[in-house]
């Protein structure tokens, strides 16, 4: 089985992002970059699946030269090789999906696993768009029944079950979990409660240096990267204003109803 996974380079979610004074862009100089945590879960799942069923895990990232670090992280976790689409352009989800569709044409994986979203733009679209372009089945927000505290996670079992050419995906939906069976090849996107991604190890970091990492360009794939979504402006969320202490629940309800008008 061959599994293609994504590894996006994103700004560290623990650091505060700065906005250019004119609101036109984010200031990324001096920022720390990490792998999108949802993608780490995708890599982990792919590694567990190939451990159980045999096969190969290929890590893909589209981004600047330094995005190779995030691919190498996937390789240090245990993936077999990487594909780096080199670009300094800002990519929207649609461009990423069209790039991935081309890579899928070439690589012919049985499964593509992506994070359900990236922690920088939280778009939550690339997986769905990719399934659309490929005409494949999609299982989004993959999770697992028992969550992360049960024995299956301790035993590092995959949350996705593959049987008879189908992949079974437990999905987080409003009000609970549903299980769907997808014909393969298929696209799966990961939610947070699918697995705990493993640590890399120092020996594997050293080995990852020697694994194959191919660089490709959008031109060679014949994909136009011009965005369909235009960023108009970035702004800070409004600063929190000081709270008020009220003397009784009645006053609170009165204020919420009449002053703030947030309850009827």
């Amino acid at each position, binding site marked *: 089985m061959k599994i293609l996974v994504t590894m996006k380079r994103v700004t560290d979610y623990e650091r505060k992002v700065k906005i250019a004074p004119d609101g036109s862009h984010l200031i990324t100089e001096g920022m720390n970059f*990490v792998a999108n945590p949802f993608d780490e879960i995708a890599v982990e799942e792919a590694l567990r699946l190939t451990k159980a069923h045999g096969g190969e895990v290929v890590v893909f990232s589209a981004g600047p030269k330094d995005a190779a670090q995030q691919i*190498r*992280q996937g390789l*240090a976790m245990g993936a077999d090789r990487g594909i780096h689409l080199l670009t300094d352009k800002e990519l929207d989800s649609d461009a990423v999906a069209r790039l991935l569709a081309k890579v899928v044409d070439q690589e012919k994986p049985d499964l593509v696993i992506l994070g359900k979203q990236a922690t920088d733009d939280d778009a939550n679209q690339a997986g769905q768009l990719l399934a659309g372009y490929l005409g494949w089945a999609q299982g989004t927000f993959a999770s697992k029944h028992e969550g992360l505290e049960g024995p299956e996670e301790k035993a590092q079992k995959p949350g996705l079950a593959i049987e008879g050419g189908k992949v079974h995906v437990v999905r987080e939906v409003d009000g609970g979990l549903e299980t769907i069976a997808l014909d393969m090849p298929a696209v799966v996107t990961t939610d947070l409660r699918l697995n705990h991604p493993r*640590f890399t190890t*120092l020996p*594997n*970091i050293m080995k990852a240096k020697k694994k194959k990492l191919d660089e490709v360009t959008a031109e060679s794939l014949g994909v136009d990267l011009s965005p369909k979504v235009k960023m108009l402006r970035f702004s800070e969320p409004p600063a929190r204003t000081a709270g008020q202490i009220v003397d009784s629940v009645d006053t609170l309800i009165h204020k919420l109803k009449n002053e703030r008008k947030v309850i009827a």
Partner: protein
Amino acid sequence: MHPAYTEEHQAFRALVRRFVETEVTPHVEAWEEAKSFPRALYRKAGEVGLLGVGYPEAYGGTPADIFYSIVLCEEVAKAGSGGVSAGLLSHGIAIPPIVALGSAALKAKVVPTVIRGEKIAALAVTEPSGGSDVANLQTTARREGEHFVVSGSKTFITSGMRADFYTVAVRTGGEGMGGISLLLIDRDTPGFTATPLEKMGWWASDTATLYFDECRVPVSNLIGEENQGFFGLMLNFNHERIAIAANAYAFSAVCYEEAVAWARERVTFGRPLLSRQVIRHKLVDMAMHIHSTRCFLEATAYRVMQGESPIAEICMLKNHATQCLEHCAKEAVQILGGAGYIRGAKSERIYRETKVLAIGGGAEEIMKELASKHLGW
């Protein structure tokens, strides 16, 4: 950033940081109060390769330059407990002589299991009669057939209570440094006992006095040649002192960050502390010391990486870094005020841990004396 840091160093830093944030930092307060951390931490650290940094692959290690060791020291230090750093990494002074000089059988017996975190290793040199004057140590090992019979005691030994293997400096020959040998002694050896010591800081690490009462140790446990032990110990010094400097640097940075965060939040006389010039200037002085320590550390490590042995610089680096720490810990506690004196503040703990770095691994005065001999006057 120093150019010696590659992408792999950064990946390693990210690994150690995540390891420390999930496996160490949340438990530090409890471990400090319990005056111990679980043995399982060694195994966890071993699993991700943290205990094998710089050791040969044949023994389960990962060959890596000295900047990896610096990254390891710095990131483990971010948990804010010198005791955890010292205890978890006590093999860092215990096994290098074995790796460099030990027989194949001895290496195979000790090194892989320590690197996997299954067994704990300690170095025992200092004695109740003195630590600085290593050449004058008193513990004797008398040859009897295929055994050495060891008598004497060691003190202030890190991981002394729970180590499985001890690399022990003993006197096998005449007076002075030419009569010293290194022996590997198993904790199960009849006649060996240890008693714990209470300390000012480093609570999470155990420190002990060791007693050897006619312990019979096989001759095959000799590390390197008989009476050549002093040379084995010297092999440790450069790395150990650079590691201490890396620790001191990292703990200084922890104090600085805690002080900045506090100064930002704490309001006195209607304004945050950070708006007061006196406080801002204190912070600048701290930052200045930290910055110079880091540059000194990296420049010296780079020379060692090139195969040099800049002894005077390493001695001065160790002093510079530990003085930086003494300054930063003192000022951080001052900026935190009463909160800096109460258990729970990182600076409170680190303040109690400054002296051990200025004393252990070659005391400040000894470092100056050694530097003076190597400055080429």
